[in-house]
C-alpha cells in the first residue's frame, strides 16, 4: 500500500533526475534569499549553476546547528515572513531554541510525507490515531496530526502526559494506532496494567515510535506488551519534523527516507568525507523542496548507514538504518534534546556552584531519568540542611524551567566527580536501549 505510488516507487534514474532539478532550484533559492548561504557559497567559490550532478553536492559546505543558532531566530529563512504560516522550534544548546518556519506549501509537503509514512506503517483511512506526541513548539504532535488528517484517518490530539486519561481514551475511543515516544509507550503499558486495562484487548494494531533512540530489544518488548506492530519513524525539526524517514510494515528493515524531498548522505563526522553505502557515519540531509528554511547538507549528528538495495515493499527510496548514536554529546531525555553545555550554563548561573558536575541518565520503569550531581565545596556548604536542600531545589527548578526536563539534583562530596585530562566525562548514560 502506498499513499503516493507514483513518487514512492519512482525508478531511481527518474528519482535522481528529480533530485538534481530540485537541488538546483533550492540552491538558487538560498543563494538569492539567504545572506548566510550566499556568503558560504561565495567563500567556497561555488555558484548554484556549478552544480550539475548529484555528486557535485559533495563540493557544497555543510550547515551546522550552530549556524541556525547564529541566525536566531529568522536569519536562515528563505521566504518572507508574509509567506510563513507556522513556526516551530527545538531546544538549542545555550537556552535559545533552533527556529524553523514553514510556508503553506511546506506544511502541505510535511502532511503528505507524514501521510506516506502512516501508510508505509500500515495505517489507512478509517484508522483511529491516538497521537500522544507533544503538541506545541515541538514538531512531533502537529506533524503527525496533519499527516493523519491528510490521510483521512481520525486523529485524537492527545499530546503527552496524563497517562490514566490516555489509557481510558484509548480503550473507550477504540484507538487503532498509537503515536508517541517508544519509552512512553512502555510507560503506558505499565500504567495500564496497574489500572487493570489489558492491552491485548485494545484495538491497537500499530504503533509509530520515534523522537528518541531505541533498539530492536525494546521493539520486541513493546510489541509483546502492547500487542501491536512497532514501527520506527525518524525526523528532526531542522529538516521538517516527524516523517523524514520511516520503516515499511512489509520489511521493517531500515527507514525509507523520502528522497524526492531530501537528499541523504553519510559522512565521516571527523573528516567530512562522504562514505559509501553500508558504512556507518553521520547522516547529512539536504532539503530540496522546502521554501521556509531550506538547509544544504545539514549535519544531523545522528549516526546511521544507508542502503539503496531494493526493498520488499516496492519503494525505491533509500533506507537508513536505525539510529545508533550521536556524533555530538546531545542526549535525548524523554524526547527532549538536552546538551550537557545547557545544563552547565544553568548550574554555573547559580551562585557558588563550581563547574564540577556529572549527568547520570538512566531509564527507570521505562521513563528516562536525569540526575545532576554537583560537588559541594566550602562556598556552597552550610551546616543547615534547609540551605542545602534549597540549593538542590533551585538547580532542579532552573533546569525544569529552562529545558523542560525534570531532574534530580544530588549534592556530592568534593573531588568525587572524576577529573580527567582534557575533555571531562560529563555524562554517564546507563540506559539499556
Amino acid at each position, binding site marked *: 500500500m502506498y499513499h503516493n505510488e507514483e513518487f514512492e516507487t519512482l525508478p531511481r534514474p527518474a528519482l535522481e533526475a528529480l533530485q538534481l532539478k530540485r537541488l538546483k532550484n533550492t540552491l538558487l533559492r538560498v543563494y538569492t534569499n539567504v545572506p548566510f548561504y550566499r556568503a558560504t557559497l561565495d567563500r567556497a567559490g561555488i555558484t548554484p549553476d556549478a552544480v550539475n550532478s548529484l555528486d557535485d553536492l559533495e563540493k557544497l559546505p555543510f550547515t551546522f546547528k550552530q549556524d541556525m543558532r547564529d541566525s536566531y531566530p529568522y536569519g536562515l529563512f528563505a521566504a518572507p515572513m508574509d509567506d510563513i504560516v507556522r513556526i516551530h522550534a527545538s531546544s538549542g544548546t545555550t537556552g535559545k531554541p533552533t527556529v524553523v518556519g514553514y510556508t503553506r506549501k511546506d506544511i502541505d509537503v510535511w502532511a503528505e510525507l507524514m501521510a506516506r509514512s502512516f501508510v508505509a506503517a500500515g495505517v489507512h483511512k478509517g484508522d483511529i490515531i491516538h497521537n500522544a506526541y507533544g503538541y506545541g513548539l515541538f514538531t512531533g504532535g502537529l506533524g503527525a496530526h496533519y499527516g493523519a488528517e491528510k490521510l483521512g484517518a481520525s486523529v485524537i490530539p492527545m499530546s503527552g502526559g496524563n497517562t490514566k486519561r490516555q489509557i481510558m481514551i484509548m480503550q473507550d475511543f477504540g484507538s487503532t494506532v498509537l503515536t508517541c515516544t517508544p519509552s512512553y509507550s512502555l510507560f503506558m503499558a505499565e500504567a495500564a496494567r496497574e489500572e487493570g486495562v489489558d492491552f491485548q484487548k485494545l484495538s491497537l494494531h500499530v504503533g509509530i515510535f520515534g523522537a528518541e533512540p531505541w533498539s530492536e530489544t525494546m521493539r520486541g518488548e513493546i510489541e509483546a506488551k502492547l500487542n501491536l506492530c512497532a514501527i520506527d519513524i525518524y525526523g528532526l525539526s531542522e529538516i521538517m519534523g516527524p516523517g523524514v524517514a520511516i520503516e515499511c510494515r512489509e520489511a521493517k528493515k531500515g527507514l525509507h527516507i523520502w528522497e524526492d524531498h531530501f537528499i541523504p548522505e553519510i559522512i565521516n563526522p571527523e573528516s567530512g568525507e562522504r562514505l559509501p553505502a553500508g558504512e556507518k557515519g553521520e547522516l547529512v540531509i539536504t532539503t530540496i523542496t522546502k521554501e521556509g528554511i531550506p538547509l544544504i547538507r545539514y549535519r544531523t549528528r545522528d549516526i546511521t548507514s544507508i542502503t539503496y538495495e531494493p526493498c520488499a515493499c516496492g519503494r525505491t527510496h533509500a533506507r537508513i538504518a536505525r539510529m545508533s548514536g550521536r556524533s555530538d554529546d546531545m542526549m535525548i531525555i524523554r524526547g527532549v534534546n538536552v546538551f550537557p553545555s545547557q545544563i552547565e550554563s544553568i548550574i554555573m548561573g547559580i551562585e557558588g556552584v563550581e563547574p564540577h558536575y556529572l549527568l547520570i541518565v538512566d531509564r527507570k520503569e521505562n521513563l528516562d531519568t536525569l540526575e545532576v550531581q554537583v560537588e559541594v565545596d566550602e562556598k556552597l556548604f552550610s551546616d543547615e540542611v534547609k540551605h*542545602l536542600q534549597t540549593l538542590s531545589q533551585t538547580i532542579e527548578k532552573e533546569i525544569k524551567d529552562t529545558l523542560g526536563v525534570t531532574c534530580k539534583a*544530588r549534592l556530592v562530596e568534593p573531588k568525587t566527580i572524576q577529573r580527567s585530562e582534557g575533555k571531562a566525562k560529563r555524562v554517564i548514560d546507563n540506559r539499556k536501549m
Partner: protein
Amino acid sequence: MKAEQISVFIENKSGRLAEITRILGEAGINIRALSLADTSDFGILRLIVNDREKAKVVLKEKGFTVSKTEVVAVEVPDKPGGLYQILRTLDSETINVEYMYAFVERCGENAVIIFRFDETDKAIKTLLNKGFNVLDGERLYGM
C-alpha cells in the same frame, strides 16, 4: 562565650561516617559531642572536638568539605523541665533554634546542650541575663 563546632558534608553512602571517625582517631582528635543531620541524599556531621584546627586540616586533606560554625553550649539542670526553662526563655525573645544536640558528658549536676541559634549574640545575652550558665569554648573542648 561562643564555642566552635566543625561541620562536615557527607554523602549518604556506606562507610563515610566510619572514614571520618578513622581520620580523626588516627590524628589523635577526641570527639566531645556530635550530631548527624541526614536527608535521603546527604548528611551534615556536626562535631565538637578537642582540637578543631587540626580536625579541620586533617579532614580537608582527605577531601572533605568542612566549615566552622559558632554554637553556644549551655548547662541545663539535669531534672524534668530543665530544657524547657531554657527554650521558654529563648522563645520569649523570639530567638530561633536552628538545631541542637546534647553533649556526651555531664558537667557536675548539669547536662550540656549545644545550640545553634539564628541570633547567637542575642541568645547568649538573654541566657546570661536569666542566669543560665553558658560554657566558654575552651572549657568545652577540654571537658
